[in-house]
């Protein structure tokens, strides 16, 4: 864990150092512009990228995860399974590299017989953009959300309070476009649920690693790996806890002027990240994989 924090700190210091060192130089030199399209969308499977669209862009996102493929053709490899998860979201770029958003996620599963209807309010700020001549060698972004569990209050146990519905997620993302084909990101996150099931954590640290490999002007192979970190010190209450399972996804992205289409397979049902980091009980096993897609549509104003 310390190693991750140390590595991230070094990258941050290096990045800020580079900016300061070049501040005077840019006055007389040609401006070093940000790299072109480090990613095609603000979404990468079920995670965020450092990319934020131009100011006054409205983004509509449709995210869907079907059921697991374990039943084979009987439910068409999960496509007709009842446990699908859906998130619809709108994001708007209010200022240069600052985006706010609102999303609604179905959540829950068929056997729980309860739609969670999670509403999340989120924001992303790309603090640093990688530049073409490496004046700034990395992109740095912070992302956070607060989510409200929308189930009937009778579902919650005794001493119900509104705060029982709340959960949050905060993430630092560091990315680099290595060349026209390869862009990679890593990140550190903190997830929190005010109310949890027995045997879960309230809080969870996680590390993230994802990227894309462009195989044609419009097509890329994409992947994502989220690893929850098992830190007992974060939650003394959970004596019989089970650490949530890592989330591995891989797929293909097609991008056009106004759309990005990502189709993938992954082993987590969650669509908001705190759900993925805290509640994923599916091991990385072929039977647990489910087909999913993320589609974004942009409008410029």
């Amino acid at each position, binding site marked *: 864990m310390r190693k991750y924090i140390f590595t991230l700190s070094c990258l941050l210091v290096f990045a800020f150092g580079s900016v300061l060192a070049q501040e005077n130089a840019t006055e007389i030199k040609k401006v070093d*512009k940000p790299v*072109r399209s480090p990613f095609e969308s603000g979404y990468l499977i079920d995670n965020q990228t450092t990319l934020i669209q*131009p100011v*006054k*862009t409205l983004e509509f996102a449709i995210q869907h995860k079907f059921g697991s493929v374990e039943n084979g053709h009987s439910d068409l490899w999960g496509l007709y399974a009842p446990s699908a998860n859906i998130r619809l979201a709108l994001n708007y770029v209010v200022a240069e590299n600052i985006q706010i958003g609102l999303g609604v996620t179905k959540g829950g599963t068929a056997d729980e017989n309860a739609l969670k209807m999670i509403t999340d309010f989120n924001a992303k700020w790309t603090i640093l953009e990688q530049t073409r001549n490496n004046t700034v060698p990395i992109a740095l972004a912070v992302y956070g959300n607060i989510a409200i569990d929308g189930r009937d209050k009778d579902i919650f146990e005794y001493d119900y309070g509104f705060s029982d519905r709340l959960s949050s997620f905060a993430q630092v993302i560091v990315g680099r476009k290595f060349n*026209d084909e390869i862009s990679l990101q890593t990140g550190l996150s903190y997830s929190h649920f005010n109310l949890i099931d027995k045997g879960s954590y309230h809080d969870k640290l996680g590390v993230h690693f994802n990227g894309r490999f462009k195989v044609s*002007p*419009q097509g890329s192979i994409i992947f994502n790996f989220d690893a929850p970190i098992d830190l007992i010190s974060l939650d003394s209450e959970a004596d019989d806890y089970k650490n949530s399972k890592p989330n591995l996804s891989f797929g293909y992205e097609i*991008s*056009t*002027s*106004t759309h990005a289409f990502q189709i993938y397979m992954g082993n987590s049902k969650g669509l908001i990240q705190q759900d993925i980091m805290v509640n994923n009980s599916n091991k990385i096993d072929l039977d647990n994989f489910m087909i999913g897609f993320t589609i974004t549509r*942009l409008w*410029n104003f």
Partner: protein
Amino acid sequence: MKTLKNIFIGLSLVFTGILLAAFTLPQNKKVGRPWEIPAKYKTMENTFKDDASLLKVGKMLYTKHCKSCHGSKGEGNGPKAKSMKTAIRSLKSAEVQSQADGVLYYQSFVGRDEMPNYEKKIGDDEDRWAIINYLRTMK
């Protein structure tokens, strides 16, 4: 047997009609009215004219933003072209290629009617000229 023959003739007529319509409909589209280009663009200088390093960038951006209407080779036969009310000129044609760079710039990024404005989607001037340079390779 006679019924079967009638069905066969009927279906043949329908398919022939569809086939003929497929060839005739696009030709009925009208080319847009002449462009009114502001003086600023008529004399606008392409500041990246000789930058060969931008050709790859131009191709990438053309593929992402323009191909769906203008086609992969600029012949105006992209998948979206069929749904347009206006006929799309071939970017290879002398009519297009004889225009000044600044005129192509105006038509491509400021646009009008069915040719949408791309000034926000392609915000960087260098990227816009990269596309113009790429269009020049379609002669």
